[in-house]
């Protein structure tokens, strides 16, 4: 994918992380290549669908938490294929005026999102690279829907493990942070090798086949992304451990859900 988006060659002959994710969630917004890869991953790691569902559930809980903190505008970067449990659905269920801007680099995910969200005046979709902070924050959609002088929820859910070390994701996060008003929230979930290092390596190798290879990070590395934020309790934890719903039974082996989750408030 060229960063300027100037390629007529929209890739569906290679698996896409967004469509593979959709498959894990039980959707059919995917192609044979995506399913083939998803099945290979599941064969290696049977809990993967559960992990992805846990991630989606974390997203829901985090959005609900943010709405509870008074956040009514969201910037969801790396939003992927909007299947079920989208941010605007969750947010607007609690706060009908909530506004959401989705951002993704995958042109197919963006086109699909636009189709689904057509007619919803409170949502918009931007085709941009997370790393191109100016393109994201300078987009007409952000200008139209978000008031960055007010607190905003920035969601980087299951995104940053697709940003390699060389691209310096922490620097990009810092640039978003610097434009966020005090009282804003950063939501991150991130694949980690902690708990299951061997499987994690194999999984990373598998994702090298996609246009979005994977870089897993440790708890400390994830925590470091929150420089300038106060981590909300319980801090950086495995996905199901982050503020589980009342009467929800947290899995007795949460490390099987090899994703870390955290929410921070800009101070």
């Amino acid at each position: 994918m060229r960063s300027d988006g100037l390629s007529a060659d929209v890739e569906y002959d290679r698996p896409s992380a967004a469509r593979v994710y959709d498959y894990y969630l039980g959707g059919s917004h995917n192609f044979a290549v995506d399913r083939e890869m998803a099945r290979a991953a599941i064969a290696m790691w049977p809990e993967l669908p559960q992990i992805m569902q846990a991630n989606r559930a974390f997203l829901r809980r985090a959005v609900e938490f943010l709405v509870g903190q008074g956040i009514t505008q969201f910037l969801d970067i790396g939003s992927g294929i909007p299947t079920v449990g989208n941010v605007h659905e969750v947010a607007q269920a609690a706060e009908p005026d909530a506004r959401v801007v989705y951002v993704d680099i995958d042109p197919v995910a963006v086109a699909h999102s636009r189709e689904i969200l057509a007619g919803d005046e409170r949502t918009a979709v931007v085709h941009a690279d997370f790393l191109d902070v100016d393109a994201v924050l300078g987009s007409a959609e952000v200008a139209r829907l978000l008031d960055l002088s007010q607190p905003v929820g920035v969601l980087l859910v299951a995104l940053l493990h697709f940003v390699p070390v060389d691209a310096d994701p922490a620097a990009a996060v810092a640039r978003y942070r610097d434009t966020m008003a005090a009282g804003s929230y950063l939501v991150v979930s991130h694949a980690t090798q902690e708990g299951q290092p061997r499987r994690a390596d194999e999984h990373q190798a598998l994702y090298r086949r996609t246009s979005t290879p994977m870089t897993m990070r440790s708890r400390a590395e994830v925590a470091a992304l929150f420089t300038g934020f106060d981590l909300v309790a319980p801090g950086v934890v495995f996905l199901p451990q982050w503020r589980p719903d009342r009467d929800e039974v947290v899995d007795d082996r949460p490390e099987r859900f090899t994703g870390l989750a955290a929410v921070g408030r800009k101070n």
Partner: protein
Amino acid sequence: MTRGPHGGHEGPEGVARAWADAIAGTSFVPLKPGELVACLLGHTRRLAAILHGSEFDPAQARDVGVDLVSAHFTGAETLGRTLDVLGECLPLLVDARVTPDATRRLCRTLGALAAGYAAALREATIIEQEEIGRAVLLARCEAEAKLLASEKRFRAMFTEAAIGIGIGDLDGRILEVNPALTRMFGHSAGQFTGLNVSDMVHPDDAPDVWRLYEDLVLGRRDDFRTEKRFFRADGSIIWTHLTVSLVRDEDGAPHYQVAMLEDVTERVRLQSSVEHLAYHDPLTGLPNRALFTQRLEAAFETPIQFGRIGLCLLDLDGFKRINDSLGHHVGDALLVAIAERLASCCTAQQFVARMSGDEFIFLASPSTLRQLRELAERVLAALSTPISLGAHELRVSASLGLVDREVAQTTPADLMSAADITLYRAKRDGKGHYVAFDREYTDRERARITMSATMPRAIDDGEFFLEYQPLVPLCGAAAMSGVEALLRWRHPTLGLLGPDQFVGLTEETGAIVPLGRWVLATACAQARSWRAEFGDRAPLLSVNLAPRQLEEPDLVGEVAAILADTGLDPAHLQLELTEQAVMRDEPGPIDALRALDRMGVRLVIDDFGTGYSNLSYLSRLPVHGLKLDASFLTQIRTPENTAHDDELIMSTLVSLAHGLGLTVTAEGIETRAQLVRVRSVGCDVGQGWYFARPGTPESISSELRASSSTTRDALPAEPGAAG
């Protein structure tokens, strides 16, 4: 595993919980755990109602299947587990006694649910596939639209660009050119595409351009930039700033080439005119000093190619007079006319530049002295014809200094200074001719220049010192009646210099005045100390006085002051003057001599007999003695070798001097034969290496001490033994 009623959960709630447990995690459903159970409880009640219904209608169970799909219970395992748990648990909600045909009802209900589920899932799958397919299409359309827009922008850039752009394949065939390029070259696009890059050669291309091009098409470099000339369609020249870039294919192999050309013809033209101005004399159009210097240095940078290099420096004679009398405009016109003539004298290897004012220089490289002389002859001949400037018919001559040297043995600066000195000599020796380089003369001149430059501080730096040479009576027993103070210069680079090497120069520059004062003061102080030690046996001090010193208005006062300062009796000082100095018919020097004489200082004529002496002045001047020039003795080194005429003149001079009451000193006595001769003609005092070489004050003191303790023969046995 599912938890059935055997696990202790009763009623629809128990079934709903067992169902939720069974399908949890099979697909993502955006519900909280409590909401999930509540949702399934609703479905459980609907199913129970179907089973209980008085009119059994299993088709209603289809809707439950449809609702499950729309709530995203879409996982591959979801339906199977649902049927499992419902098949086991639903009968527990049905009272088989009340409901007839319970088992059949259950089967048909679950069958309807499964059918509804399958139909809905099929529909949802198709819809989602269509959606994602449409999304791909949309994404591609958008990308293509962007690409098209981009293509349009690039096309516009290509078409509207002010710089010329051409695209060619690797064989050099020109495939496409933009309008700017066609305008620059005057070719149509069609004519261009018939051309090959190799048709674009200009004979004066920089040698590496085509090598760079070769490297580029072979993929060894990605681009190059250069300035290159091309022929336009009409044959005129266009200068371009050319950038050629290689475009590679996806595998990195060379694909085609893109050339961008900026028309810099005007800039090059301007640059060359600026360059011309910087390197040429605006008046005559000749190369200027800067260009000459550059050429000269360039000639030195390729010494193997050019064995010898020649300079001919030319200065017009009397140009200032023409300028002053006829005005600068005439002077300028004359210079222009002369420049033309000089330029016409050059051969292919020769080059003329205007250095400054009326000074021109020829550089010949390679050169021989013969060629330089021929050049000089041509120049003199070219200038011999009068130059007509309006009403004026001007005759000009020039002096030329020629220098021709091996490049390896000289430097540009050395060569220039040799040319300067040689030209100076040509001027001094009479103008209107040329003089060729003479090594000895040049070295001497250089030494003179060095000396005159370094002399002013040499006195302060203590580089001058005095030696003393004994004056010995030729009759009687006294070993030494006097000493002559002789000036020496220990020069830091030229070495030890005698007065003949620099006194002439000091007279020219006027440095002789302070120097002479220093000599007199130093020598007088020394003589006074000898007086203090040796009393009457101390030698008479004889000091040379240069003609220029005699012209100093306050000479007498200065001598008196020095004598007073040092405490030396004037009678113990003798001043040696040259004939030329005293014979001038001016009152000043004569008055000074008379005053010195009155003061009691002895005066002698030095180097007597070398000039055309007017003997009559001897009687009019207050002199006390003569020093016969050493040249009288040069013919008399051995007793056999005697020039009778010299001897006759000598004896006549001595008689004349004695007749006038003057003492006679013979200088330059080096052999015993010479001593015998000067004694025989009656000279009174002798001086020369035969007696002693000039020595330090200490050597004189030692001599005096030695002669006081022993009685010595007046004549030493060996020449120089006392020195």
